[in-house]
């Protein structure tokens, strides 16, 4: 609902004026001219289903506490981020993976396929054209999964706030666990964010599916 209202206020004059000529005459396919309804459909947030871990159902209660600890420690030590560099933050993310500020020593290996990744580091501006792809990629990742929103653009639009074709923050469509501020954040800041995510995984080990 807020998305629709926000989209409606972003283009007030679209309702008032009827767009006259434009490419509809030239283009072979019929294109709807109203953006507001389509935007609401595109930008609907994903449905988040909490996973149900098999080991919780199988193990007796007394063994679940050490099992939680071991499994959470294993998950945090081997986070595989999906390479989702969109814009300038991607360059700093790549610099963090490389030899000067190494991320491999934390067990973090970049992996291109969403089906085998744990973490999605949204590095860069998410535009409304890209939003359905982001949602699809998030849904393709298997549970348990986390999202790090890197940079100012992914947090709330950044320097491109107020342009109505930019999504003002990726948390409007997917749930985010850690926000890393900066434009672009230094590699040390991204490492700090990943370590904070590791701490969060340990702290929330009872809730992870």
């Amino acid at each position, binding site marked *: 609902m807020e998305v629709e209202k926000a989209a409606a206020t972003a*283009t007030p004059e679209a309702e008032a004026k009827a*767009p006259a000529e*434009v*490419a509809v005459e*030239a*283009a072979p396919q019929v*294109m709807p001219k109203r*953006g507001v309804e389509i935007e609401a459909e595109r930008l609907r947030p994903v449905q988040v289903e909490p996973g149900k871990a098999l080991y919780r159902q199988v193990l007796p209660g007394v063994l679940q506490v050490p099992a939680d600890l071991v499994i959470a420690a294993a998950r945090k030590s081997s986070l595989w981020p999906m390479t989702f560099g969109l814009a300038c933050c991607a360059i700093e993310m790549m610099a963090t993976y490389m030899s000067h500020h190494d991320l491999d020593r934390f067990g973090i290996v970049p992996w291109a396929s969403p089906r085998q990744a744990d973490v999605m580091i949204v590095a860069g501006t998410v535009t409304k054209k890209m939003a359905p792809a982001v949602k699809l990629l998030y849904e393709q990742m298997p549970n348990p999964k986390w999202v790090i929103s890197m940079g100012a653009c992914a947090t709330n639009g950044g320097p491109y706030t*107020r342009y109505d*074709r930019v999504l003002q923050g990726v948390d409007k469509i997917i749930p985010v666990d850690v926000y890393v501020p900066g434009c672009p954040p230094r590699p040390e800041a991204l490492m700090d964010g990943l370590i904070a995510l590791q701490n969060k995984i340990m702290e929330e080990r009872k809730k992870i599916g």
Partner: protein
Amino acid sequence: MSPEEQQEAPIVPPPPGSVADLFAAVLPDVKFQAAQGALDVILTVDREDLRRVLRAAKDDPRLDFKYLRCLSGVDHMEAGVEVVYHLYSYTHKHNVTIKARLPQDDPRLPSATSIWRGADWHEREAAEMFGIFFEGHPNLVPLLLPEDMTDHHPLRKDSPLAEIEEWQAERAGLAAGEAGEAEE
């Protein structure tokens, strides 16, 4: 900046022997309005002559503008929409800017893709950002904006950014009273 504060640039005629004279020699019956810009000579033509002028600019050996640098649109509100072509010639090492102004309610223009292949995406972008229709373009669908969200043209002056302009005007009123913007 409100329309009352906007000023137009004074027309400075180009020096003799410039590209404007070459154009006048090649196309003597076309009406040009020549001015000297900061770096290039600017020629303003009517919409009807535009296609002939561009074709002559590329094909005539004295002009030989084989390289289209840039094609942009500028929205001058009531005065219309302007399309600007920047051209360069590698053989004669001269450059020129050609402009054509279109009325606001009928922004149609012949496409330049049959003359320079590199005008393709520039025209698609101008079409979606300003609403200009290029006749003869092979594929005039939106390029940068999503195809199904074409309800307004972002770069037109009457589609402002969401509430940023009141915010800026307010801040400018505050800052003018303060003792100085720090000199960078």
